[in-house]
């Protein structure tokens, strides 16, 4: 919010007749309440989690200051590393697939001349379905008994959800199905900002379709790609609902967020739960900062070439 204001030319420091405040001071004054509320809503829980993660608990009751002991417990727990492995694998694979499929969808939607509305609607349907519903639906389809996928592929009794490795594949497949349309939507928005004259002149210069895509579309799409990857990566790192609904965390599909919930609700140890969620938060923040700094740079570079 504040950057949008500061990038504009600074307003003249006029004083309103009869009042002692400049416009800038007045603007700050008006924004202050929302900044305060944002700080209370966003920063307080983060700070509280940090403090909680430094305390030791016995049966939900604070036992005293623990220093970094909770972090030590978490980092030496094999369940944590198993969850990290799954979360990492899930994030890399699903985001990569969603990007490729989403880009294909976006190009299709951008080029479709006839039936444009229908194409978009069809592609966007999965995104509208609530994740928990989608998860339950895919769990039913991959299941042996109603077994839609097995009868479709003629696999008889293949146990997708109940075998190591394949359980991860089903969760990733459901996530790609659900969120590739979202990536497509963001990329489509980017595609539509590219002026068609650029393509026309490239065609005049004899550039092939592949060359136009590689040298024109991709570089100009970079900011949109960055935004799409940022959103999807951050979402994937904190994945909870799909593996919870589809496999309950069995066969190596327990994510970091599921582990956090376990320590907050099922076997309550708020200290360890908070340490885990702080680690998850740091990961998400790290990913976010990385992408935002990239977006910032691509904005600057994109601006200088024009």
């Amino acid at each position: 919010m504040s950057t949008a204001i500061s990038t504009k030319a600074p307003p003249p420091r006029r004083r309103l007749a009869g009042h002692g405040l400049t416009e800038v001071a007045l603007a700050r004054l008006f924004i202050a309440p929302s900044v305060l509320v944002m700080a209370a809503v966003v920063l307080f829980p983060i700070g509280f989690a940090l403090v909680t993660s430094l305390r030791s608990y016995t049966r939900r009751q604070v036992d005293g200051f623990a220093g970094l002991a909770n972090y030590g417990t978490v980092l030496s727990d094999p369940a944590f590393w198993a969850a990290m492995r799954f979360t990492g694998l899930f994030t890399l694979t699903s985001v990569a697939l969603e990007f490729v499929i989403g880009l294909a969808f976006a190009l299709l939607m951008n080029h479709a001349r006839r039936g444009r509305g229908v194409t978009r609607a069809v592609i966007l349907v999965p995104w509208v379905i609530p994740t928990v519903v989608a998860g339950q639906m895919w769990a039913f389809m991959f299941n042996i008994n109603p077994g839609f996928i097995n009868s479709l592929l003629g696999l008889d009794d293949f146990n997708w959800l109940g075998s190591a490795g394949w359980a991860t594949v089903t969760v990733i497949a459901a996530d790609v199905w659900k969120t590739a349309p979202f990536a497509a939507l963001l990329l489509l928005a980017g595609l539509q900002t590219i002026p068609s004259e650029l393509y026309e002149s490239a065609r005049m210069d004899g550039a092939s379709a592949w060359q136009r895509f590689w040298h024109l579309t991709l570089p100009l799409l970079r900011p949109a790609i960055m935004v799409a990857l940022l959103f999807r990566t951050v979402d994937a790192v904190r994945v909870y609902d799909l593996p919870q609904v589809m496999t309950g965390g069995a066969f190596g599909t327990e994510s970091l967020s599921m582990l956090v919930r376990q320590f907050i609700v099922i076997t309550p140890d708020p200290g360890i739960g908070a340490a885990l969620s702080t680690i998850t938060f740091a990961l998400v923040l790290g990913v976010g900062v990385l992408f935002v700094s990239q977006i910032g740079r691509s904005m600057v570079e994109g601006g200088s070439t024009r």
Partner: protein
Amino acid sequence: MQKKTWIAATAVSAMAVSLAACTPSGDDSAESGAITWAIGGARSQPGAAHDQIADLWNEANPDTPVTVEALPESADEAREQQALVLQAGGSEFDVLGLDVVWTGEYVENDWIVELDDRRDELDAAVLPGPMESASWNGSLWAVPLNTNTGVLYYRTDLVDAPPSEWEELCQVAADLDDSMSGYIGQGARYEGFTVNWLELYWSAGGELYNEDQSEVLFDVDIATEVTSFVAEATQDGCFAPGFNTAMEEESRIAYQSGDVAFMRNWPGPYSLIAEDADSPAHEATAVAPLPGFDGNPGVAAIGGFNNAISAFSENQEIATDFVVWAATDPEVQQILVENSTLPVLNAAYEDSDDPLITQLGEVLQTAQPRPSVPAWNEISLEIQSTIFPAVNGEMDPRAAAEQLAEFLEGTVAE
């Protein structure tokens, strides 16, 4: 400047109001004599058994009415809601509906009061298994309300008599035609798996703890044996291929659609199966006690809910009268039967002319509760992270049993 503080104050107070609205309200308990019954579970929704029981009490006791505070259906979430109030010392809830495995945790947190002076009248009328689940450290801390137990469903058109041993069940399964598997139970990785495995372990003569839960009696050999049995049965097709992803519903669907000959489940699905005219199991289903191992009889696990009195309640006496009444009043216990829940009153089984209820009464005589130790959730998760991979061939059964034994020792040392 004034404007700013006014806005900020409004914002802060709006937040405070919305935060306050998140905690369960206790308006009804404010008037003296009224009690609040906070209970979750599948039948806590309006119109179901709990409301009928409350109405029955309120008719006879208009001065001390009870209101039902329906908690979430998921046990974890219901427990979390109660914990929020109890940890803050709140008096909003007078009667707490406790899942049978929560007793020890609530006692150790000083959340509930002891009820030993009502023990004699309850012992005389109520089933021993549920009474055990309401006890901790030799004292009574809750009063059973309803119970539940695992039973073996079998197809009367395929077998003449239910198998009394697991080996026997798998022999029958081997002779079925190829489109059918032998058995399905709750083999997905969740609390149901723990229950299913414990039943097998108990049925082979194993125990987790001694009487007062002060000493671990875990037997690594027995645990290895039953774990290997499940692993082999899953491999050779005695257990259905969907066993390791099945919860209660998936099991019922597999059995009801004729994919398996035997099923372990709670009594709840019985009427659904009997009423489904399209099912091959329709009119050909009976229930029996679970099979055993090595000549030992099968042991079923007890589920259900107990009622405890909050340590912060301002109406403990009336609340105690209410929970004892709910356990011993024949009319209340009949409401449970009508809602497909099992009563805890001995007489409800003895007087019944329903053969299913009589049969379940027999199963319940030998059924056993999971130990209601404070660390039960940790233990259940440990069983899920050692035994579950072992029955799925991803861990050596003996190594899994040894790791579990070590964990159980740790729960007593604390």
